[in-house]
């Protein structure tokens, strides 16, 4: 074992390779006042959702038959699952394009992605009007195979419940291994080689399925036709939605890593972050290239510079993606955490704007109605997001999610339960266990 020498925190100056494995946050209180506040928000949202279950949609939302989709669908699902595409973007980079460095941050991406998807699905569950008919999803002969909505309503729950859950399973098994008894360890020694056996096959599904439904989210809007401003309505929308998902996935993972490492005073890792920044910049350029070619191809470029409301929105969205794309080309900025944080935040907002605008702002039915989310609608949307943040904070405290120095962790975990106590010592000294048995 070669312990990493302790480094003084050098955030903002130079970056040194510090990320070797997932390491849980074992110090400090979990339940901070801020987290308690988020728990209250989440509780209010879920209580409202519970009431919505026995009430019609009308009193809960400002949706109407012209603007039939409110922010639950357009923001919580269509926009936020782009941020939750980190597992897709990083996983493809790591496993398909062999960017081995990214394996260490996969867990962060996976947990955040899982939470974005699951909260989005909760939002969807309370948004649909006749959820009791959803049992049709298991009857393929009733499927309308040409519907993009079908693709999404089948693939999203499937992805979240099967593939993402499988990918985050090692978090739980690892904790069980180090904190459980001998029987549990024997069981895990038996199971983990099997998990490793099926893992490469399962992750094929974990990439193919989100490729399908992230592009189908754009495909949904094709049917809306002329209701969507021609700057956004385009046959390239499925591709752009997919690339925007990758863009947001990379950008949000960088953003999240930097924010959380700042919060928990973790040292950063130069090589992983610059790799991610490189990929983000590349995806941004790819997005802009497709967007430009699409606009020129359809002859709609003049609309982009008409400097009316829609054109300004388009220019805002494009510049929010263009700035990080260009800035992250420079090594000086790539290696400065502050610049990286700002640029990834800009890219996140830009990608989210692209995903959100055609569903709402540039969506103009001919009937003169308007839509602005009502208070319960907003409270529920905020509640779902808070639920995700709360779950993420718990996950990084109780499981080895965040990347860190392997030498700073003795494989002890924060115990579950309310009483505050010193973390139990690791079950077994590290080297006493043959390394190969500890698969998961």
């Amino acid at each position: 074992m070669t312990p990493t020498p302790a480094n003084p925190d050098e955030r903002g100056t130079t970056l040194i390779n510090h990320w070797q494995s997932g390491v849980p946050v074992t110090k400090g209180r979990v339940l901070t006042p801020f987290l308690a506040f988020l728990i209250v928000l989440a509780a209010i949202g879920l209580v409202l959702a519970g009431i919505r279950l026995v009430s019609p949609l009308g009193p809960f939302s400002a949706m109407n038959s012209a603007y039939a989709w409110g922010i639950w669908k357009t923001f919580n699902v269509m926009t936020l699952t782009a941020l939750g595409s980190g597992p897709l973007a990083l996983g493809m980079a790591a496993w398909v394009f062999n960017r081995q460095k990214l394996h260490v941050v996969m867990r962060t991406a996976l947990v955040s992605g899982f939470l974005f998807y699951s909260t989005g699905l909760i939002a969807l569950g309370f948004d649909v009007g006749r959820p009791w008919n959803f049992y049709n999803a298991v009857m393929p002969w009733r499927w309308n195979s040409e519907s993009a909505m079908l693709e999404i309503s089948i693939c999203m729950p499937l992805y979240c419940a099967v593939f993402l859950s499988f990918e985050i399973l090692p978090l739980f098994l690892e904790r069980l291994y180090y904190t459980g008894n001998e029987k549990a360890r024997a069981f895990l020694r038996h199971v983990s080689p099997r998990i490793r056996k099926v893992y490469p096959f399962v992750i094929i599904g974990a990439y193919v399925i989100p490729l399908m439904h992230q592009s189908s989210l754009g495909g949904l809007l094709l049917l809306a036709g002329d209701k969507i401003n021609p700057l956004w309505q385009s046959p390239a929308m499925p591709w752009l939605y997919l690339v925007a998902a990758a863009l947001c996935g990379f950008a949000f993972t960088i953003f999240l890593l930097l924010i959380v490492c700042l919060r928990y005073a973790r040292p950063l890792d130069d090589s992983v972050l610059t790799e991610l920044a490189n990929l983000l910049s590349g995806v941004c350029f790819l997005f802009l290239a497709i967007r430009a070619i699409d606009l020129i191809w359809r002859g709609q470029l003049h609309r982009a510079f008409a400097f009316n409301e829609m054109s300004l929105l388009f220019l805002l969205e494009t510049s929010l993606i263009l700035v990080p794309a260009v800035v992250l080309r420079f090594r000086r900025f790539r290696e400065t955490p502050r610049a990286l944080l700002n640029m990834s935040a800009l890219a996140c907002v830009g990608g989210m704007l692209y995903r959100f605008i055609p569903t709402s702002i540039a969506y103009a039915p001919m009937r003169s109605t308007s839509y602005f989310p009502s208070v319960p609608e907003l409270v529920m949307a905020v509640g779902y997001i808070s639920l995700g943040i709360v779950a993420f904070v718990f996950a990084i405290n109780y499981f080895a999610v965040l990347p860190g120095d392997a030498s700073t962790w003795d494989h002890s975990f924060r115990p579950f339960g309310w009483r505050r106590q010193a973390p139990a010592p690791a079950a077994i000294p590290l080297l006493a266990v043959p390394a190969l048995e500890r698969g998961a």
Partner: protein
Amino acid sequence: MNILNMPLSRRQAFKAMLGLGGTVASAMLPTTALASTEEHPAHPIAPADAVAMLYDSTLCTGCKACMPACNEANGLPADTLLSGGVWDMPTGLNAQTKNIIELYQDPNSDEFSYVKKQCMHCLDPACVTGCPFGSLKKVDFGAVTWNGSLCIGCRYCEVACPFEVPQFEWEARNPKIVKCEFCYDQRLKENLEPACTAACPTGAVIFGKRDALLDQAKGRIAAAPDKYYENRVYGEHEAGGTQVLYLSSVSFQKIGLPKLGSTSLGHYATKVTSVIYKWLGGPIMMAGVLGFAIRRNWNRHELERLDHEKKTGFPDQL
């Protein structure tokens, strides 16, 4: 180790060839083989039994006899919100109104026109294309009907419909999609014409075969040139063609009929995806290609993992 000098086993090579060949095939096949059996042609042809309504706004006197007739046939309550609970007075199509007569009045001139709104029963309806479990369906005579036992209430039909016809019951615990169904269950099945055309006293809206009505409409245009706006029938080509046809002396856009291209929305939305998802070919090929790359990188990762675990003593984390 480099991807280029990594030895390939025979099996791996076959897999790669299958994947690459499949990708090439998926790009080339659809243009030839699938073109003949297209499910959503750009310009759909009306089925032989397609019925239609022809509404001529120059004949409509705005008596609204069709509205209570529609409510009665469909068992809909009167929308009395605006009239203080006295009579049926909807402001547009809504959860209690499948059919409505609207009035267009130009504030600056004496130009005015009535217009009847209901489902257009498109030849290739966008709502039917989008409906995930086939709750909305185009049935005999071309009527577009809704089946409550399949609907999950996603409201995609409302987003998809270019005429903004389907209405969701926002105030109901068991919300339904309310839209004109051509009186399919109530009357068409029993060889009766829809309630609204049966009730119309002036013949402003008439019922018949789509071909016959189209001919009749063109006959009216020919008999009175320049009486009708653009000398054409709205619905003949709009969104691929509809089974409700309009004649109007006032601009179609002014009376609330959207300006649409002649390509069906279903064609626009599915022309690429229907090829990619044909027999799930695209996803399966994608899985093949990804699987090949993942398998190789996985094997490399395993070698490095063992190496790394031996060196550091730290277990690898998935």
